[in-house]
């Protein structure tokens, strides 16, 4: 078919472009790009200085070589930040000569002539590779990777491993009882999470919240709230709820519940965002109300994946509930922690095996059920 010749730009398009590209918005985008560049360049400079110090052979106050923490403490942050800002500015001002900077490319797209070049021919390509390489080498030093110890000093852990291999029957009875509690704990947390996550997930789906100012605000609020909730570890939630309702399985239920709501909202809303828009259009076209559109156009499409995610979440909750017990949130972890502290490796072995078997069974069962549903 013939390509349809199109006017370079029509009147309406021109008007729209002007509405979208106000000098203010342009300026904001420029600043965004500049900021991203400054941060990336700062990272590179910091890591370069870190590596320089690490290999300089300089000694600390104790006469020993500097530890990674000491190096991190000594980096010249303010000067490097200034330098990074300056370099970012230069890169953004002279991008035509140097090549599009990474920040500018992210925010506004690369220059036309760079679009199809392989990374080896763009400055931001080389910059990215440098950044990744530096991160790896710095990470090696910061986390004090010790290949030799890992390969030669296994004997030191022999006691523990031997204990784990020879589980003692003493805690089997108590362990089994608490295991049942653990599974119920995970189940209740999941059950409480479902209705709330279900309702909230519609507000956290981008494709359903574009309509007006209020829905966009709701989206932002819900997303932020859920991200914050998810960012706090269930272990921390457990500590909060233990003070709230006291030590015991209910605190564990609440801790996993909060975390599950946040996690399920994320999974559910992503699922809603990936639905086929066709039925939504069709139901909207009948004159149905927004709630009816959700009921007919969205819900039938997301029920099977929702079920699948929920079972998966229960599975995760079983795993997490063993840890929750460590701080007093009920379940099998509650008797595991003191035995770890005492070094009763035989009993620890029994409990670890019980947990492993349960998690393994949950894994199989949840996989099977999910297979049937989807």
């Amino acid at each position: 078919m013939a390509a349809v010749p199109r006017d370079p730009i029509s009147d309406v398009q021109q008007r729209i472009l002007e509405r979208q590209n106000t000098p203010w918005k342009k300026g904001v985008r420029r600043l965004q790009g500049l900021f991203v560049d400054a941060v990336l360049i700062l990272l590179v400079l910091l890591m370069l200085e870190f590596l320089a110090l690490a290999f300089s052979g300089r000694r600390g106050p104790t006469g020993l070589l500097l530890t990674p923490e000491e190096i991190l403490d000594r980096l010249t942050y303010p000067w490097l930040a200034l330098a990074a800002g300056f370099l970012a500015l230069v890169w953004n001002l002279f991008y035509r000569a140097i090549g599009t900077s990474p920040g500018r490319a992210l925010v506004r797209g690369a220059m036309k002539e760079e679009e199809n070049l392989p990374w080896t021919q763009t400055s931001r390509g080389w910059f990215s590779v440098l950044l990744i390489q530096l991160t790896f080498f710095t990470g090696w030093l910061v986390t004090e990777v010790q290949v030799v110890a890992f390969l030669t000093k296994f004997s030191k852990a022999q006691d523990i491993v031997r204990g784990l291999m020879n589980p003692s029957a003493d805690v089997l009875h108590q362990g089994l009882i608490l295991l049942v509690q653990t599974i119920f704990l995970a189940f209740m947390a999941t059950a409480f999470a479902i209705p709330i996550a279900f309702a909230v997930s519609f507000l956290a789906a981008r494709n359903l919240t574009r309509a007006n100012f209020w829905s966009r605000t709701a989206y932002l609020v819900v997303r932020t709230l859920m991200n914050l909730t998810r960012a706090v570890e269930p272990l921390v939630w457990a500590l909060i709820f233990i003070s709230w309702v006291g030590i015991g399985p209910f605190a564990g239920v609440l801790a996993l519940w909060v975390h599950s709501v946040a996690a399920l909202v994320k999974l559910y809303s992503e699922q809603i965002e990936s639905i086929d828009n066709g039925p939504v259009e069709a139901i909207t076209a009948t004159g149905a109300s927004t709630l009816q559109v959700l009921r007919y156009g969205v819900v039938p499409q997301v029920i099977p994946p929702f079920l699948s995610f929920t079972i998966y979440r229960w599975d995760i909750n079983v795993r997490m509930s063993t840890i929750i017990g460590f701080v007093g949130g009920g379940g099998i972890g509650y008797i595991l922690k003191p035995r770890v502290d005492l070094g009763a490796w035989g009993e620890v072995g029994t409990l670890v095996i019980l947990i492993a078997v349960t998690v393994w069974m949950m894994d199989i069962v949840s996989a099977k059920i999910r297979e049937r549903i989807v």
Partner: protein
Amino acid sequence: MSGPSEMQRREAVRIEGLSKVYDDGTLALDGVDLTVYEGEFLVVLGLSGSGKSTLLRCVNRLIEPTEGRILIHGEDMTAATGRTLRRMRSDVAMIFQQFNLVRRHTVLTNVLSGSLGRSGRLGSYFLRFSEIERKKALEFLERVGLEGRDQSRADALSGGQQQRVAIARALMQEAKLVLADEPVASLDPALRHSVMRHIEGLNRDEGMTVMCTLHDIDLVRRYATRLVALRAGRKVWEGTADEFDDETFLEIYGQEAEPAAEVA
């Protein structure tokens, strides 16, 4: 032009200066003026990307127009909001290329969903409809030749059958206007006429005005009472099926396009 003269005919849809620019800057419609009269079977022609689908979706506001005005039976669709918008939408049925049935629902529920615009009752959230509506739905299913399939899941049906369910849904909506967006493009060529005849039925027997986009020139000549051609978002031609000759075809589709054998 066949039928009564334009003076006597009532306007079903009046489109004035309609433009649509998508968020990515694509210009889909560029100042389209168009009037559709009651009882017409209007076919919208044009290459893919010429703005046909956008035009139809602007009529019932599945897509928000950027500029311009749309009047449906004299009432301003572009200004409608909330309840008014929903009431006006319920007067405009739509048939889609991909059928857009709710796949996990039964055929009957899919047909009944056509009545959602007028049944705001709580029952609709539990997929419950009145006995009268159910009877109507079964009747419409029979009319499109799907009696006995009402309890099948929608996705268990073949493409042609699914599109007929969608037509029953449109019947259920009791609309005055039908928008059909490439209704047969994803169907087996052998099944196209059967589906097109049902849409023709909506037009002839139910007196619904039809706005339909089509690719197949053969079908265009067979069913259209009037044609409109779009090119790069602009209306470039308008006329009856008889006036649509080879020359016009090349004008609309470009010099490199080849008219179907039947046209020559």
